[in-house]
C-alpha cells in the first residue's frame, strides 16, 4: 500500500488504502482529490460523553499521542517528516505492532489503533495494581519513553520513522535481544518488552559504561532499532 519514493519519503494511494492516518504536518504534496481532517485515537478523545476516570486516562494518554490527520478521497499523497528515514511495515493477518507515537509517520485507516500501558504488556514487567503503576511511571521517567505506547493491529500497513535508518532484529532465537531504550523504535509480532537496570556501583561514581537502562525483548517477532539515540 505504501511505497517508498526514496529513503525518506513514502507515497500512498489513498483510495486503495481505504484512508490514511498520518502525523499532522507530514504531508508533503498530493495529486488528485484528497481531503484531510483532524483525527484522534479513541482513547484520547474528549468527546463521547466519557467523564471522570476515563477522561482522565484519556488525558494521561495524550502524552503518547501525536496530533494526526486522516486523508480520504482519490489520489496519491506523499509523506515525509523532518528528513528522517522511513520504513514500511506490512501487517500479516492478525499481527500487531507496538510503536512509540512519536516514531509513527502514517498507517492505513483500517488498522485498529489503541494506546496500551507499557506495564500491561505482561511478562511480569511491572506487575499489577498500584505498585505496577508506580513502577511504570518510574520507568517512563527514567527512559523518557512515557508510560504508554501505541499498538496497531489488524490488516494494513504502517510507516515508521527513524534517525539514521533502521535495523531489524529477530526476537525468538536462542539468544535474548536487548535494546537501548533511546534507540528502540517499534516491535512487530508477539514481543514483550521489559525494562531492566544494569546499574552497578560504577554508575554511581560516574564510571559506568553508559548502558545502565536496557530494554529486554522476549517473545516472537521483530524489533526495530534506529542507528541513533536521538529522541524524535
Amino acid at each position, binding site marked *: 500500500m505504501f511505497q517508498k519514493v526514496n529513503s525518506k519519503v513514502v507515497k500512498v494511494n489513498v483510495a486503495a488504502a481505504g484512508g490514511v492516518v498520518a502525523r499532522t504536518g507530514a504531508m508533503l504534496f498530493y495529486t488528485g482529490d484528497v481531503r484531510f481532517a483532524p483525527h484522534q485515537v479513541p482513547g484520547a478523545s474528549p468527546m463521547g460523553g466519557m467523564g471522570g476516570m476515563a477522561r482522565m486516562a484519556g488525558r494521561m494518554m495524550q502524552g503518547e499521542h501525536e496530533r494526526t490527520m486522516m486523508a480520504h478521497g482519490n489520489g496519491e499523497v506523499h509523506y515525509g517528516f523532518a528528513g528522517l528515514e522511513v520504513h514500511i511495515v506490512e501487517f500479516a493477518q492478525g499481527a500487531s505492532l507496538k510503536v512509540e507515537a512519536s516514531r509513527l509517520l502514517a498507517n492505513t485507516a483500517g488498522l485498529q489503533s489503541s494506546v496500551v500501558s507499557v506495564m500491561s504488556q505482561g511478562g511480569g514487567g511491572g506487575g499489577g495494581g498500584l505498585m505496577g503503576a508506580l513502577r511504570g511511571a518510574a520507568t517512563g521517567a527514567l527512559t523518557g519513553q512515557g508510560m504508554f505506547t501505541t499498538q496497531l493491529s489488524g490488516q494494513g500497513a504502517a510507516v515508521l520513522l527513524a*534517525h*539514521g*535508518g533502521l*535495523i531489524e*532484529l529477530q526476537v525468538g*532465537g536462542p*539468544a*535474548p*535481544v*536487548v*535494546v*537501548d531504550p533511546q*534507540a528502540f523504535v517499534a516491535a512487530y509480532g508477539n514481543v514483550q518488552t521489559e525494562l531492566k537496570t*544494569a546499574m*552497578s556501583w*560504577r554508575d554511581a561514581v560516574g*564510571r*559506568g*559504561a*553508559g*548502558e545502565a537502562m536496557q530494554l529486554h525483548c522476549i517473545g516472537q517477532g521483530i*524489533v526495530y*532499532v*534506529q*542507528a*541513533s*539515540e*536521538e529522541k524524535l
Partner: protein
Amino acid sequence: MAQLLEKSKKVIEAQLAGTSIKALTGSMVAYEGNVQFKSAGFGGGSGIMAGLKQRATGEALSLMECAGNGRVFLAVNGQHVTVINLNNEQLKVESRQLLAMAGNLQTNVTFAGLRGASSGQGLFTTTVTGQGQVALLSAGGPLIHLEVSPQYPLVVDPDAFVCAKGNLQQSFITDVSWRTAVGQGSGEAFSLRWEGNGLVSIQPAER
C-alpha cells in the same frame, strides 16, 4: 578475535565469542546474547595516568568494554560508519570519530605539534597501533579516503579530518593575515598538511 562488521551504512555489528571489544561509551543501540558492559577508561591507555593524561590533553575519549557471547550493535547519532583493518600499523585518529576497536590494539595520546593551538582541536592526537579492526564515525556521509604520495601532498581542514594511516608527516599551515584580524578572513585560516606516503580520511562535514 572479535569481529567488527558494517551491519548497515550507519550501524556496526560486533561479533563476540567469549571475546571483547572496546567501544565509545553509550554507543550500544542493541545486543543479542549475553554481553556485559563496563567502563574501560580512556584513550590514553589504562590506569590513573591515563585519566590524568586525558584531563591534561583534552583528548576526551571515553570507552567501554563489551565482553561476552553474542552480537552487539553500535551506532552514534545516525553517523556513517567504516571499518578499517590495521595490520601492525599506526592510525592517527580524531578521538571524537572513534567508535569501536577489536583485536590487539593499543591507544595512546601523543603530542601532535602546535597544530591545534588555535584550531580548537587540541595539541594532541589519539593514535591506535597494533593488529585488529577500528570502526570510525563520519558525519554527513561516508568517509572520503584521499591518497597522499610524495609528489602530491594533501591539505585538509582540521575540522573535517578523521584519520590518517601510513608513513606521513603532519604539519600545520596558518593563513592568518591582517584580513583575519579585521574579520574579513576566508574562514580557512588553519589547515593540516600531509606529506609522505599514505591514506588520509575525511568526513563530508565540519565539526
